[in-house]
């Protein structure tokens, strides 16, 4: 009887101590793109792979968005 009680008490103590608790922090893994491949904008028919020209055109186009650049103050 005493032995059974001792086993139950030890079992209860272990259960309350949560010694079997699994880690609850998720391990994140960075995913990799699973869709279709895409071409780059300078590989279009308009640029034919000329990346330098595309970047130059983009910069020039961006600068046109400022009226200060287009019409410098006198």
């Amino acid at each position, binding site marked *: 009887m005493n032995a059974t009680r001792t086993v139950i008490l030890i079992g209860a103590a272990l259960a309350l101590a949560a010694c079997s608790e699994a880690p609850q922090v998720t391990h994140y893994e960075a*995913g990799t793109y699973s869709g279709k491949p895409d071409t780059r*904008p300078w590989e279009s028919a308009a640029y034919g792979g000329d990346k330098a020209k595309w970047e130059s055109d983009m910069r020039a186009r961006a600068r046109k968005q400022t009226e*200060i650049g287009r019409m410098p103050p006198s």
Partner: protein
Amino acid sequence: MARMKFLCDTERCIECNGCVTACKNEHEVPWGIQRRRVVTINDGVVGQEKSMSVACMHCSDAPCMAVCPVDVFYRTEDGVVLHDKDACIGCGYCFYACPFGAPQFPQEGAFGQRGKMDKCTFCAGGPEADGSDAEFEKYGRNRLAEGKLPLCAEMCSTKALLGGDGTALADIFRERVVRRGGTGAELIGWNTAYGGGEQKREQTRGGDK
């Protein structure tokens, strides 16, 4: 290498919704989908009204990419966040993750269930042949491949909305705030970009009288 960004100057935005209209027209965006919208705070309060045009901000560390269970998002070499609609399952996780509310979902089918996600592409199309009908139908026009910038920014009447390489936009904005005047932190910084700029200075001048 260019890093494409949008920048909206709240000191200039007049809530005309021209950017919204341009986007919808250029890409023939279906009814109920808003790739871009204008948000106004303090609407109707004289002197405190601020408007800002919001769409996908093409985050450098995009939360939509992090939460997508089928990994349909990718970032192009020039920093534009795009996705493959063919693989999208329309789960809506990206909508919950996005701090700007950029992902949009059309209603499809007889019961109006959520369709494949649609969002601003920075006018860069998607993973289809550049300029093809398939690309236009799924993602809209590919203006970057034509050497053009997003139409919403290019046609903004007050040039509040700027789009393009982040370095070029920073140069434009720096020129602006220097011309606006002021000293110290108000010359360039949070208050100038997001409120408290010219209107605040006018209030201060009024208070001095």
